[in-house]
Structures are given as C-alpha cells and as structure tokens.
C-alpha cells in the first residue's frame, strides 16, 4: 500500500538523519539528567515529599522533554528548505504526518525509558511486577502528546517565536492527558491496579483517538502553509 510505504520513507529519512547527526538524542539525554538534578534539588530535601510527588514529576519530566523533542519535528525540513518538497510530492499528506509521528514516538519512548530508568535508580521507584502496566500507561499518554506535538510543530514551523508559541498551544490541550496519566501512574505505582483507574484509561484512549484523527485530517492544511 502506497500510503504505508510513503509514511515509512518519511520515518526512514528522519531516523537516518538523526542517527548521523545525533543532535536530538544527545541533547535529550543530557536534558534528562539535568531534570533529575532539578527535581532532586527542588524537592529532595524531604524524602516523603518527593515520593508522593513522583508520578507527577515523572510526567513533568516526560512533558518537558516532549516539548523540546516534538517542537523541532520539522526543523530539518525548514533548515534544508524541503518544506515545499513535502507539499509538492503527490499523494495523501497524512502519510507524512504518520511518518513524522512514528519518528517522534520512537524518540519519545527512548527518552522516556531513560527518564524512567533514572527515576528507578535515583529516586528508588519500585517497578517490580508493574512494569507492563506502567508501560501501557506511558504509551497511552505519549501517543496523545506526540499526536498534538507533531501537528503543532508543523503549525509553528513558520512562526517567528515558535519556541514560545509551541508550548502555549500544546499545554492547554495536554491538561486532560496530564491529569489522567498522573493518576493512572499513581495507581500503578501504589499497586492499586489498572482496574481502579479504568475510567481514566478510557479517557486517555478517547483523547488519543481524537487527537490522532484530528491530526490526520488537518495536517494537509498545515502543510499548505
């Protein structure tokens, strides 16, 4: 199917370029370490404070890293003057959205795995037995964040103050996802179990579907820009 193949070639291109330049990955790894220190210094004085806040801090970390990683989704298109090329290539433009989204998801998952690992090691988070559930929650939350982020990155690619506008657009829409993922993460880490937060998971799922569909349908209008 041509759609899948075209989306794949966009993913292939982004992965190849990232592998060669390693720009994003290096910076994000470093950023994750910094976050750790930041959280420790801001809240680490009182052990209990920190433990209680951990689910929130985890997602704060994911979102901050996400803003950085997703905001630059179309940076290479801009820098290499290829934006027009994407628009001119005949075919369904949402294939490009899918390819970019896939690349962003890979990047986000890599960074989130690192942040989670750092949390487990430095903040003593006990993930024994709940890792699959945790991964499921992180997956649900990240898909929504990436779907929004990829779309808005396309929008802000041409705006002068894009680093300011991008978070302003993403964060308000991110609030339901944030509330849901933090609560669900809390439930998983405190061994309450996913069943207790079934309604939250449904909300996250609904949000993901809404944002993905909106992204697929409206991306061509953004690309025209």
């Amino acid at each position: 199917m041509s759609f899948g193949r075209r989306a794949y070639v966009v993913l292939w291109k982004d992965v190849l370029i990232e592998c060669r330049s390693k720009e994003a990955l290096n910076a994000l790894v470093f950023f994750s370490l910094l976050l750790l220190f930041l959280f420790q210094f801001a809240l680490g004085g009182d052990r209990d404070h920190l433990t209680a806040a951990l689910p929130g801090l985890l997602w704060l970390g994911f979102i901050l890293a996400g803003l950085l990683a997703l905001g630059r989704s179309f940076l290479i298109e801009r820098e290499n003057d290829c934006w027009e090329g994407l628009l001119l290539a005949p075919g369904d433009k949402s294939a490009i959205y899918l390819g970019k989204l896939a690349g962003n998801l890979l990047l986000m998952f890599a960074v989130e795995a690192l942040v989670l690992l750092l949390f487990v090691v430095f903040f003593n988070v006990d993930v024994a037995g709940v890792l699959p559930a945790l991964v499921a929650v992180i997956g649900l939350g990240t898909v929504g964040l990436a779907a929004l982020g990829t779309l808005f990155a396309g929008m802000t690619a041409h705006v002068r103050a894009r680093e300011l506008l991008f978070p302003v657009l993403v964060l308000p829409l991110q609030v339901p996802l944030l509330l849901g993922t933090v609560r669900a993460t809390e439930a998983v880490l405190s061994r309450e179990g996913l069943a207790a937060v079934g309604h939250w998971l449904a909300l996250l799922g609904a949000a993901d579907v809404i944002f993905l569909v909106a992204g697929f349908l409206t991306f061509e209008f953004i690309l025209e820009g």
Partner: protein
Amino acid sequence: MRRTTIRVLGWLTVLALLLGLVWGFGVAPREVTQGNVQRIMYLHVPSAIVGEYVGFGVLFLASIAYLLTRSERADRLARASAEVAVVLLAITIVSGSIWGKPTWGTWWTWDARLTTVTILFVMGLAYLLLRGMIEDGERAARFGAVLGILAPLNVPLVHFSVYWWRTLHQPPSLLKPGPSMISGDAIKDALYINLAAFVLLYAYLVATRVRLLRREVEALA
C-alpha cells in the same frame, strides 16, 4: 448583518441585561446560606454557559466551515466568537473569584468548574495568540481553524478529567457544587433571564466584531 439589525440587537441586549439585573438583585430572594454574594451567580453561570458552549461551539463549526469552503466570512465568525468567548470566560473567572472570597475565604480555589473554565480561557487565549503571531492572513485563518477545531473537541475531555480529579482528591464536604446550586423557582427564573440576556450579548458582540473585521478588510482594498 445589517447595521440596523445590529443596533436593534444592541438595544434588546441592554434591555435584557437590565431585566436580568433587576430580577437577580431585586426580585430573586436572598439566598439562605450564602447571602447576597450568591447573586453574583447570575453573572457567573450565564457567562460560563454562553462562553463555553455557544462561544466554543460556534468557533468549532465556523472553523470546520472555513477549512471546507475557505470562506472569509466563516473565518471572521470564528475569530469573533473566540474573542467574545475569551471575554465571557474572563468574566466567569473573575466573578467566580469574587464569589469565592467571602464563601471559601480565598480568591482562588481549584474547584472543578473554575478550573475547567480557566483551561478553556487559556485555550481561547492560545487561539488569539496563534492568530496574532502569524503575519500572513490566510495562513493565520487556516491554522486558527485547525486549533479552532481541536480546542472545542478538548472541552469534554477537560470537563471529565477535571471533575474526576477534584472529586477524587477532595473530601466531599469541601466540594460543594458551588454557585451552581439552584434552589427555588424565583432563583431559576432570574437565572434563565440572565442566560437569555447573555446569549443576546454574545450575539451582539460577535455581530459587531464581524462587521468591524469586514470593514477592516474592505478599507484596505
């Protein structure tokens, strides 16, 4: 909309608002537990309802219409609706805060309604900011339309998530339904009158704003 129609609408709005004021502060009885401060609900609730549902609803539909037809009228309607919605939501927040001080002792509380309205307010501001920061008018309209579709879609998600968040984190006694507690017919009447008045206010402001936007474009041509 024609100028005379807008003018008539304006007068109707003034009348309705006056009527609403009279009913709210004169006719409706003093609320038992909260006292006169409860009367601010006649301002707070209608502005919330009209801002959220009518304002964002029109923004949503007009944005879809713009993307499908590229009609500049649809775009002007979307933009005007967003602006008026932001104003109404600001009124909601401020009136909610004024109500909160004597009732709960603080200017701000993370009550479900107030939080939801604030998030919507911020989304509306983001929309206006997006449009303001893009120089190309056509692109601003197009990108605005995309956000104008996404933001209202987010509204039910925000409602549920904030409500669940509050009910699960706050003991029920603190979470009184707040200004939306309605008891008694006289209060309901006052509420409906003010609601109608605010719908008229919304319509008048949007019509005026759309007209202004159109005149701006015509003036340049």
